[in-house]
């Protein structure tokens, strides 16, 4: 199948999917307990005010009317205004998403760059000292909760040494302050990512190294280093890309815990705050934007896979 046809058909398949998601998002939120009209008034809620807000926000309308009204707004990229801040929702969601990506993408790349040497070295000499050490490190990295490593790092680098900001997103994009405020949260994510990726790469490397074609490559006179670089790694990297996709989905969903610990204004934090505040329109917008993002990431992973693995790319042209 032609690559372009493949992409187009995948995008078309995504339309009913996303439509279904809008229904789920809407219905689930509507049946959740908690009345935003009451909640927003805090302790001094009055029945009159509640009735007024309920009518103003259209919460007294039947569900399907509210859904159609909401969806028609969504299709015009108008998610309405936040019940909490009264600001337009979409710009808020997008800037929070951008902040999450700013934290997540360097973290994913950093984790992968760390994982490749770890995975390869442990696979070349399985059960060696290096392998055992990396296995232990991975276990530690995966077992310690991310908020704990986050807190420890804050305590040490920010409180004790005072070299990095405790939390928050400082400065403008690419400013020194921004980069400094990124370091701790990124490292917290890198630790977990590298541990996971390193283990995945080790096992897929081990599998590939024992494949017969590695023997062919060695029989040609290639050095072990060359064999690893040109034959083993390109084959072993395939499952690795699945991991990258998984991480990316995690970032889109917001690294809620990390964002909360470091007060990083990402989409996870926005999501969490909006849910606590019963800010339905914002929650809906977050959910839909994230779902769309996840869909796009899946598409990207599949395309990358097809690019890297000719057996997928040429499925259907076999035996021509």
């Amino acid at each position, binding site marked *: 199948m032609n690559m372009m046809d493949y992409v187009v058909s995948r995008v078309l398949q995504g339309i009913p999917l996303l439509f279904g998601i809008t229904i789920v998002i809407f219905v689930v939120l509507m049946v959740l307990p908690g009345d935003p009209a009451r909640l927003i008034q805090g302790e001094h809620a009055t029945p009159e005010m509640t009735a007024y807000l309920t009518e103003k926000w259209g919460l007294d309308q039947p569900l399907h009317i509210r859904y159609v009204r909401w969806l028609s707004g969504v299709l015009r990229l108008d998610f309405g205004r936040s019940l909490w801040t009264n600001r337009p929702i979409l710009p808020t969601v997008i800037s929070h998403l951008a902040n999450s990506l700013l934290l997540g993408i360097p973290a994913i790349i950093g984790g992968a760059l760390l994982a490749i040497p770890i995975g390869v070295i442990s696979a070349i000499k399985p059960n060696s000292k290096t392998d055992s050490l990396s296995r232990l490190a991975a276990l530690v990295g995966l077992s310690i909760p991310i908020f704990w490593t986050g807190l420890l790092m804050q305590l040490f680098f920010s409180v004790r040494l005072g070299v990095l900001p405790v939390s928050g997103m400082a400065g403008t994009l690419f400013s020194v302050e921004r980069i400094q405020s990124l370091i701790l949260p990124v490292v917290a994510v890198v630790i977990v990512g590298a541990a996971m990726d390193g283990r995945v790469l080790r096992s897929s490397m081990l599998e590939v190294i024992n494949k017969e074609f590695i023997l062919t490559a060695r029989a040609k006179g290639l050095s072990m280093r060359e064999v690893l670089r040109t034959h083993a790694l*390109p084959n072993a990297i395939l499952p690795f890309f699945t991991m990258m996709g998984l991480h990316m989905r995690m970032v889109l969903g917001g690294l809620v815990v990390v964002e909360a610990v470091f007060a990083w204004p990402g989409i996870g934090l926005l999501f969490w705050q909006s849910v606590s505040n019963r800010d339905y329109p914002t929650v809906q917008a977050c959910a839909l934007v994230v779902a769309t993002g996840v869909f796009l990431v899946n598409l990207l992973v599949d395309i990358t896979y097809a690019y890297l693995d000719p057996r997928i790319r040429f499925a259907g042209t076999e035996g021509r």
Partner: protein
Amino acid sequence: MGLTGGDGVRDGDLQESILGLENLRTCFYTQGAVVRAVDGISLEIRSGEIFGLVGESGSGKSVTALSIMRLISSPGEITEGRIIFRGVDLVELSEEEMRRVRGDKISMIFQDPTAFLNPIMKVGKQIAEPLTLHRGLGGSAARSTVLELMGLVGIPDPEQRIDDYPHQLSGGMRQRILIASALACQPDILIADEPTTALDVTIQAQILDLLRELQRELGSSILLITHDLGVIAEMCDRVAVMYGGHIMEVAETESVLGAPQHPYTAALLESLPQLSQSKERLQVIPGNVPSAVTPPPGCRFHPRCSYTEAVCIEKMPSLVQLADGRQVACHRCI
């Protein structure tokens, strides 16, 4: 470079030894046990011949091949003996020096072309690897040599196929790709380890024909490893029969197959199905292949041999040369 420019086999070359194994022993160390997969074998392969190595599964054929390539990996090890190639002992070479031999002077093809090709590398690139490595060919020079090689091994439309991936080719074509890659540097010896076992019968014949043709054109020697006596009869100038890590008999193919001297060879031949006697039950060799961990004392074959005497249990027979030039390891022949 002229790939087809070889002037074939000259009669004078036939007697010249190109590869000699002297008392080669390869062991595998597994959980307290030592598996003596190849247990002190001596062989000589001559320039320009097709030499067959035949035996049952587990007799040590493939380990012999991998030992020659020095590709035995842990927990295996060559523990004893010499592998003399053009006067140089390969066992003594450093890994670095050995790499220059592999794929250039001695190359190898394997049983299952599907598993032995990298699934995500274009076949042209896989053929070109030894050329780049040993001859420094790159870019268009490598490409044109690869096209020439692909034509030589009988791949139709090489231009169309060079950028294909292995899964786009048939099994027979894949084996041709492996052969092209192995012959790229015109090696002195091609080791073919069961090259047709994984292929359809009709394709098997084509691949064997191709190997014989190429051997004539390029003048390489071939060490052909197989369990199939039919293949041996078809292809080989001389043959060694291997059993339990030992060589039982070495001679010209006609004399081994026509008048076997070792009881094992004779039993092996009797166990072949014959079209003329299709109604009869097949002869089987009683018993099982000996354990490589605790081999029987004396002659490896004595528990299954119908001529066993006391000496066979006590003493391992050595390979001795008979008057007609053949070598046999059996007390009856001494």
